[in-house]
């Protein structure tokens, strides 16, 4: 296993204040980030995700312990040195005024280039590479302010890439984006971590996406951080516990959260594939609980026919009825 690009030793994070006692959000954290790894930091609102990110990035003082970046305590690094080893993408989308894409990404060369920021051929090559790497080539000569949030975010990631740092921290990079754009950014980050051998840590509220794309999760709740692969954290119940709240349940089988309504009965939907899956979602939304094990359900649904013309056979007690659309099934269950 590779050596950690960044690790923490007995780190305590929170806010120091002069007149009141310090507010500690989490303590005794021993975390490590490795090159080539995409780690997602998850946790409910207020758990201290942003504070942890800011502390790791040297933007906020640790209350105790230390953060070690490529062998050095980040407190001992000069701002410029720190910038060559660690880059960040923040939640706020700065409006960069009248810059084009290349000019924006070229700002990432600041820790490397001369006093007035001239670009050497090497700097230019890195800027070009970073822009291509995030797939923003066709945006790069357009004014940044004409771009959409997602496009701008890609350029901000390119800027962090151009900084040539071994570690990248991203604070909610997918916030404000629509779902396809979120998937695209996550996929990009995962690919960047592997192909460019960077250690990437991102915080997100996108649990589903994090479960699917992260190599590791840092699950932050109750002043502690649990580390593990997404799957192991789901299986040991840590994931469910971290996000436990009223009216919402985590379904380990589908790997997603569902809105828990009044249970009007139990349903079993047989079969695998697109139609059964969406049928399950429909009946769940209608207020029925799904049963997977041997418990006899109130209603049993079987699907036959091909995918383009499915037929639903609904068995309720002794009665069996056949429907040709989910709408009809729901209408029948609603009675």
């Amino acid at each position, binding site marked *: 296993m590779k050596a950690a690009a960044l690790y923490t030793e007995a780190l305590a994070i929170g806010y120091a204040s002069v007149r009141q006692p310090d507010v500690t959000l989490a303590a005794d954290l021993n975390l490590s980030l490795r090159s080539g790894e995409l780690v997602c930091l998850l946790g409910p609102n207020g758990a201290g995700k942003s504070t942890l990110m800011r502390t790791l990035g040297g*933007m906020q003082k640790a209350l105790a312990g230390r953060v070690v970046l490529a062998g050095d305590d980040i407190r001992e690094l*000069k701002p410029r040195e720190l910038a060559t080893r660690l880059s960040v993408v923040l939640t706020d989308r700065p409006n*960069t005024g009248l810059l*084009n894409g290349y000019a924006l990404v070229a700002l990432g060369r600041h820790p490397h280039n001369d006093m*007035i920021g001239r670009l050497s051929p090497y700097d230019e*090559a*890195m800027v070009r590479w970073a822009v291509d790497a995030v*797939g923003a080539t066709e945006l790069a*000569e357009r004014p940044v*302010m004409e771009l959409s949030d997602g496009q701008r975010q890609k350029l901000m990631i390119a800027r962090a890439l151009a900084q040539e740092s071994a570690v990248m921290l991203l604070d909610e990079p997918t916030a404000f984006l629509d779902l396809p754009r979120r998937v695209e950014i996550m996929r990009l980050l995962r690919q960047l971590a592997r192909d460019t051998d960077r250690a990437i840590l991102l915080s997100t509220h996108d649990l589903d996406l994090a479960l699917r794309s992260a190599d590791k999760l840092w699950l932050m709740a109750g002043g502690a951080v649990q580390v593990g692969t997404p799957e192991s954290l789901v299986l040991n119940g840590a994931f469910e516990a971290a996000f436990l709240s009223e009216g919402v349940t985590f379904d380990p089988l589908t790997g997603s959260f569902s809105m828990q309504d009044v249970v009007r009965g139990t349903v079993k939907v047989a079969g695998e594939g697109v139609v059964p899956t969406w049928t399950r979602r429909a009946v769940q939304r209608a207020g029925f609980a799904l049963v997977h094990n041997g418990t006899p359900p109130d209603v049993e649904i079987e699907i036959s026919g091909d995918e383009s013309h499915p037929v639903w056979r609904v068995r309720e007690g002794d009665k069996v009825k056949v429907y040709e659309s989910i709408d009809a099934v729901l209408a029948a269950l609603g009675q």
Partner: protein
Amino acid sequence: MTDAIYKPIPRPADYLAKNDLPRLNLGLRPLLLLVLLAALIGVFLLVVAAGSVRIPLNQVVIVLLGGTAEKASWANIILKFRLPKALTAALAGAALGVSGLMMQTFFRNPLAGPFVLGISSGASLGVALVVLASGTVGASMLAGFAVASDLLLASAAAIGAGIVMFVVLMVAGRVQNSMTLLILGLMMGYLVSAFVSLLLYFAVPERIQAYITWTFGSFNGVTWSQMPILAGAVAVGLAIAFVLTKSLNALLLGEGYARSLGLDIGRTRVAIIAATALLAGAVTAFCGPVGFLGIAVPHLCRSLFNTSDHRVLLPGTVLMGAIVALVAALIAEVPGNNLVLPLNAITALIGAPVVIGVVLRQRNLQKAFAS
């Protein structure tokens, strides 16, 4: 299906190997700077040539190059009056433009200008104290005031501006964000202006007139003996500004990102404020509180160069500032007449419509600034 859309990430090494690529298009138009330079030289010559005595342009060039003019009085007029005036205008315009640009970038606010931190208020308090509160100065002395005490006024203005800037600088290193600083500067300005109002209220009318004349602003008061002080202060201020080019560019992303790019925010903040104080303070001391140039010139430059990159914006603002100030000086003299209009009225009269035009044409002004 996944394979079809999976494109591998390119490798940096491939880009380093290619050496036949064109330069990156950063959207900069540095050649426009040459156009501005030519315009500056033209306006400069016009200012030297125009006035109550009209001097032919070719004679102006001859005198400026050290030759002998057709009329000896022309050389006298040019070297004693017109050249210092034109130089003062050019220096003041460049200084105010650059300090305005730095303030707008630093505060991420299109309305910021050289005086947002209270420089002009500090200077006016200094001047007001000298003009209004020197109780022993009789009315007879006031007659010779304009000539004898120019340097006294300049010193008073510089000290007033300096004290206000010192207070702001002391606070600048400690506050968390620049918005606090902006509010602090504004409040300092109000406080100081309140003192000036009190002084005005209790002063004799003749002295009030002298004070008001100072507030009109003028490029005519700087003598050759004072020129090195003004030019020196402006040169140092501009030098600091050029060293800050990269920091100012980083600040376009906001302080958080700027810090992540290796910028020492505290030190940068102090340098920006010190440079602004030097530039705007020196100009205010010698020319009075010349309004508008500092706000308008950076906007003109952004719209002309269509970029926020300070590598072209800074030199552009130096040239544009000098040009606009010279044009204002030209108009204030009312060609073919002995009348000299208040400079501040002219800068506002030509500046305000220009800024309104730029702002209306550039609907994305809001986008070009703070998020």
